[in-house]
């Protein structure tokens, strides 16, 4: 097959591409330039976007003896991922930009262009597995390494996309991948993992957002009494479930710690309360994308609401709309701190059923 291997400059995509070459595919490497003003060198532990990463990616391609090109997707990335990230926070929601990038950029714009240019598949260094069922349907599964499993951020892939994706690292642990990179003599073998959000260089999301959304003082209210107990400088900077950074000098009467339990950007109000207010057992979500067949009401699934978060048994209580776009689930035990905007990803065992964007969560049983 003619395969386009996306190389970030990190160790995972390097080994994925190498395995693709070994498998006998005709591989071409592409580095996705996401930043309109790339830094010369990596700052901190970012794993993309700098000229240094681009150079590392090129070195890997040269080592593997495959052609290397850079695709400039900075404009699309800014529009679809960064602008959306800002807008979501400004609306008081908590988006996942990696998921968004996979949905709109990597496995949409890039995959479409690859297919148009005559490639059969796109290969990445994501930790997840694609399997083909007996009936020919494509299935997305968790990776064997639970610490690295990235099926959560890939839960936006449809059958058509899965048919043209290759994730060669799904059956390996990070340690194995690093060891393999070393054995293959790839220079990126010991490069640190990337984490945090690639377009926020210093990892300070709050400051980054404030610089773009603006600072606007507002009230911090007690969710139970309604009393104003503090001030904040922009509701957008708060996420449901957050405890640190509230700057409250009045401790609760019962001396309990207080958490953000609600964010209302329209009135610029942050609601705080005891952690019990954060416990929910029902979640509604929309804009669902299903990797395979739509789920049905009553189906027992497991639910996950953040990358590497807890996995809880759940049951679908409603499935509505065209292409089953809106769902609600109930959890068998309560989950703490679910913010609107987060992705609800549903699994059947290790198989990803699909994902939807959380609109609301509440407590049904006490």
């Amino acid at each position, binding site marked *: 097959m003619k395969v386009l291997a996306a190389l970030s400059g990190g160790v995972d995509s390097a080994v994925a591409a190498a395995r693709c070459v070994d498998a006998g595919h005709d591989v071409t490497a592409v580095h996705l330039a996401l930043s309109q003003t790339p830094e010369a060198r990596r700052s901190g532990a970012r794993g993309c976007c700098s000229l240094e990463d*681009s150079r590392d990616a090129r070195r890997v391609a040269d080592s593997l003896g495959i052609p290397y090109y850079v695709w400039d997707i900075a404009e699309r990335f800014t529009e679809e991922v960064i602008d959306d990230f800002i807008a979501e926070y400004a609306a008081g929601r908590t988006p996942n930009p990696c998921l968004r990038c996979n949905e709109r950029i990597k496995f949409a714009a890039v995959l479409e262009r690859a297919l148009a240019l005559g490639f059969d598949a796109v290969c990445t260094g994501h930790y997840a597995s694609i399997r083909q069922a007996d009936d020919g349907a494509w299935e997305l599964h968790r990776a064997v390494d639970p610490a690295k499993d990235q099926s959560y951020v890939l839960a936006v892939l449809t059958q058509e996309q899965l048919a043209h994706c290759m994730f060669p690292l799904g059956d390996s642990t990070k340690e194995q991948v690093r060891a393999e990179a070393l054995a293959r003599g790839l220079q990126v073998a010991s490069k640190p993992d990337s984490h945090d959000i690639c377009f926020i260089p210093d990892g300070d999301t709050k400051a980054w957002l404030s610089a773009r959304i603006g600072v606007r003082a507002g009230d911090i209210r007690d969710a139970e009494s309604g009393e104003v107990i503090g001030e904040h400088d922009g509701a957008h900077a708060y996420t449901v479930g957050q405890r640190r950074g509230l700057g409250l000098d009045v401790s609760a009467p019962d001396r309990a710690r207080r958490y953000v339990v609600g964010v209302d950007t329209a009135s610029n109000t942050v609601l705080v309360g005891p952690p019990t207010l954060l416990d929910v057992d029902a979640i509604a979500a929309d804009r669902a994308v299903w990797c395979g067949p739509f789920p049905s009401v009553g189906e027992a699934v497991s639910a996950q609401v953040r990358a590497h978060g807890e996995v809880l048994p759940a049951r679908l209580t409603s499935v509505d709309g065209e292409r089953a776009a809106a769902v609600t689930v109930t959890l068998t035990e309560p989950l703490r701190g679910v913010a609107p905007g987060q992705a609800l990803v549903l699994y059947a065992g290790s198989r990803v059923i699909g994902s939807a964007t959380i609109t609301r969560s509440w407590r049904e049983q006490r």
Partner: protein
Amino acid sequence: MAPVPAYLDHAATTPMSPAALAAMTAELAEVGNPSSLHAAGRRARKVVEQAREHIAHALGAQPVDVIFTSGGTEADNLAVLGLYRARRAADPARTHVVASAIEHHAVLDPVQALADREGATIHWLAVNRCGQVDLEHLQALLRDHGQQLAFVAVMSANNEVGTRQPVSDVVAACAPLGIPVHSDAVQSVAWEPFNFRASGLATAAITAHKVGGPHGIGALLLARGVALEPITFGGGQEAKLRSGTLDAPAAAAFATALAETVAQQPERAARVRALREQLVAAVRECAPDAVLNGCDDCLPSVAHFSFPGCEGDALLMLLDAAGVQCSTGSACTAGVPEPSHVMLAMGRDRATARGSLRFSLGATSSAADIDALREALPAAVTRARQAGQALAR
């Protein structure tokens, strides 16, 4: 079946001539720093000075005019920064610079750096749709800012579209005001006679690897009486204008390649111009809507096309996979193809600028290269058009 590679990117770099390679390898076996006073040093010094004389002779310059550098970029930087600082030191009012909008980044970027770091005011000299500088615009700039100009920079021929520039007219316009003119002659010296002393230029940049010499050596030609400040400091080699141990093997190879190129220039240029016509015909046959950019007054070696609805980097990748090697012609940031500043200056929109390819020929080009292009281009254009310019929006 693996295709036979067709190399159509001689403007990026061209193969070393066998004679230059022999001169270089022979000299690499010798010991001696040309600045040393002992026998080995004297021997190396002789190699460098002979090379200097051959280069000067090939380009209508005096040996003293030739300042060896690490290549064209360093020569351009030395001219731009060195002329500006020397002229401003002589008269603090001279803080304005005129440079054509289609200069290579080796000129463009140091000029921009003068504005960003040293308070210079830049006037980008406009070009017409063919990519030739607008002499009326130059006259207007000379009229308005003549007393404030540190220097004027106009390349001899553009590296992307191949358009030749009216450098002698530029020099004639600047001469009465005593304004030095720098010309990046990197692309043209292989293809047309160049008489530095007769040109009236203050400085000219050349490089070895575009004329069949090695990478890593070039020269700035500096006219007598022109004040220039050094930009590197050290051993003071090259008349205290450029420091660094002289590279005798590279200088010998540079001189050999340049002398050979200049001696064979008329025949070579005629042969390559005929090949270019075949290339242009082949592209038109394969992609009837492709637009040839530039004008008739161009280098014999360069043909630059826009392919409507295609992205240049997609075409490049598809042609590369089919064994045909060419260039988008524009500079890269992290390998990201930027819309060419040359095409934008020529009045093209960003999509057209991004949808362009440069094919460039050299001494080793043959009709087989054109045949390979004719073979590969139709499928590449069809695919690239399907892929469109989706990523660019």
